């Protein structure tokens, strides 16, 4: 057998649209996995030449440098406004935003909701890691009740800080939205489901139907104070209990 010519075929490695440079996330952060997913989606959909990304401020701030596509960065929370203008000026392009749960859910909530209200045709990748990673682990609107963060040192108390934002469900209530789903990449099967959802969210834009939105639950070992492996379990047990996965809206025409 050994004599037979054996060739190596690459099954997996750095995705083609991921620039060659080290990542700058913490060990075990799922952002890297989501970047792979996005690269694959863009690649497989054949839209790399006319896609434009806009990253919010947060641990995803460096995404513009890491993708081999046109990719801008935005002031904290303002990606939907910037994306709006770009899409209006280049309507033939595919425009998406990448935003953390602080970026979209707190400072940028008004900006984002108004983009939905205006009926923009955009796609948003929403990174829900239940906290502010970049600035050192403060509470985000998505922080679970009882969870300790640097600004909820005694655990998040809904009496004084409210309940978690359920973005995917909220988005689904808006008329101009064509697609809204919540996904994770914390298992290979979920990775594949998330990939399909992401393609759908782009397709709704490309087909001119409406807004496409995908919320990713994403492990943040640093803020959660857990190991990367414990974080998988945390998603499974705690995050999924608060944030159920699923498609909350998927329509092919609006009105």
């Amino acid at each position, binding site marked *: 057998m050994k004599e037979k010519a054996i060739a190596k075929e690459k099954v997996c490695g750095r995705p083609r649209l991921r620039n060659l440079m080290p990542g700058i996330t913490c060990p075990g952060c799922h952002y890297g996995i989501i970047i792979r997913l996005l690269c694959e989606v863009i690649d497989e959909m054949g839209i790399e*030449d006319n896609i434009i990304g806009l990253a919010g401020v947060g641990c995803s701030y460096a995404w513009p*440098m890491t993708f081999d596509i*046109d990719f801008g960065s935005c002031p904290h929370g*303002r990606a939907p406004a910037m994306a709006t*203008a*770009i899409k209006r000026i280049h309507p033939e392009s595919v425009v998406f935003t990448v935003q953390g749960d602080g970026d979209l859910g707190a400072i940028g909530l*008004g*900006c984002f909701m108004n983009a939905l209200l*205006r009926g923009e045709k955009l796609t948003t990748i929403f990174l829900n890691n239940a906290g502010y990673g970049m600035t050192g682990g403060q509470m985000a609107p998505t922080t679970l009740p009882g969870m300790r963060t640097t600004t909820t040192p005694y655990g998040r108390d809904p009496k004084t800080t409210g309940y978690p934002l359920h973005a995917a469900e909220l988005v689904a209530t808006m008329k101009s939205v064509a697609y809204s789903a919540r996904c994770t990449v914390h298992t290979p099967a979920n990775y594949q489901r998330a990939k399909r959802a992401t393609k759908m969210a782009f397709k709704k834009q490309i087909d001119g139907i409406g807004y496409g939105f995908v919320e990713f639950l994403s492990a943040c070992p640093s803020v959660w104070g857990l190991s990367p492996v414990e974080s998988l379990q945390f998603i499974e047990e705690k995050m999924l209990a608060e944030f159920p996965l699923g498609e909350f809206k998927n329509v092919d025409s609006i009105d």
Partner: protein
Amino acid sequence: MAEKVFIDGNEAVARGAIQTGCKHFFGYPITPQSEIAEYMSRELPQIGGAFVQSECEGASIYMLYGGALAGAKVMTSTSSPGFSLMQEGISYISAAQAPCVIVNVMRMGPGIGTGGQQGQTDYRQVTKGGGHGAYRCIVLAPSSPQETFDLVQRAFYLADKYRIAAIVLTDFIIGRMAEPVELRTLEFGPLPEKEWALKGKGGKGGRCDHPAGAPRFPGDLSKGIITFYMHLLDKYQRIAESEVRYDTYLADDATLLVAAYGSSARMARSAVNMARAEGINAGLFRPITLWPFPEEPLRQAALAAGKVLVVEDSPGEFVEDVRFAVQGRVPVHLLGLWGRHNERGGGIIYPERILEEIEKLT
């Protein structure tokens, strides 16, 4: 001669922008400039452009930023409180050196102010950079609808030429007064391609617009903070050397120099006429660019006259730049908003009041 129309300063803003090729406008209503957005909402859809009513001035400036990065000629307009809300965005625009035009039709006072009435109390916030990071914007202050029409076109040119935000500063009076305006297209010469614009990489390498990302152009923040600022300083220096604009009126033989900009310069001009009629050799110095400030020409004119009277409809902001220029070498007097004929929002510093002050000083 091009067609002449009877329009006010607000309409002159909108028409000037369209005349010079602006097809995308982002704005939020606020008195006394909502008419600019309204004009755009009627006209832009007809020429294949887009008018987007933003949800607030913050959104306007971030849309403007996005539009500028997309490589289009873009404009927004607002009035004072709205301009305050734009400061973070202007700072980002300045860091990214994204060319765009911002119009501020000032109204009086801090806070809600006096309900969209006359005032010139945005001088500092507009000229000193109200946002973080020690940037500069070009500031042009027209004093008639015609000049507004022309300067808006120039603002677009300067924005593209220097990759900078160019602000056109008018106010209630200039915005709403109507005069005949000649619809002339100003030609300023060729401009560089915007190869840095985000529009889909289209076969080329992906462009990254990120301060810490791959360098996109000279002076990109990613090259390091000193390189970045030296590039900016050099650019600001070039602007200061080439783009200073001002106007003088009977200043050559003046023994009293009145300094005023925008709407106040109109009243001041009347006052100078009145003073001349009385045999007082008053003259007028009117900065057209508030940044770069015509520091040297003003100093020369002030030294020649020996005495300066600043007129501004504010508690005294522009006067600081005049004092800075004059360096304590001749006396500088201020007639501020206390020169108004009444306390209400509609109060005005009339030429008669300025004349009084001129008489007092001679």
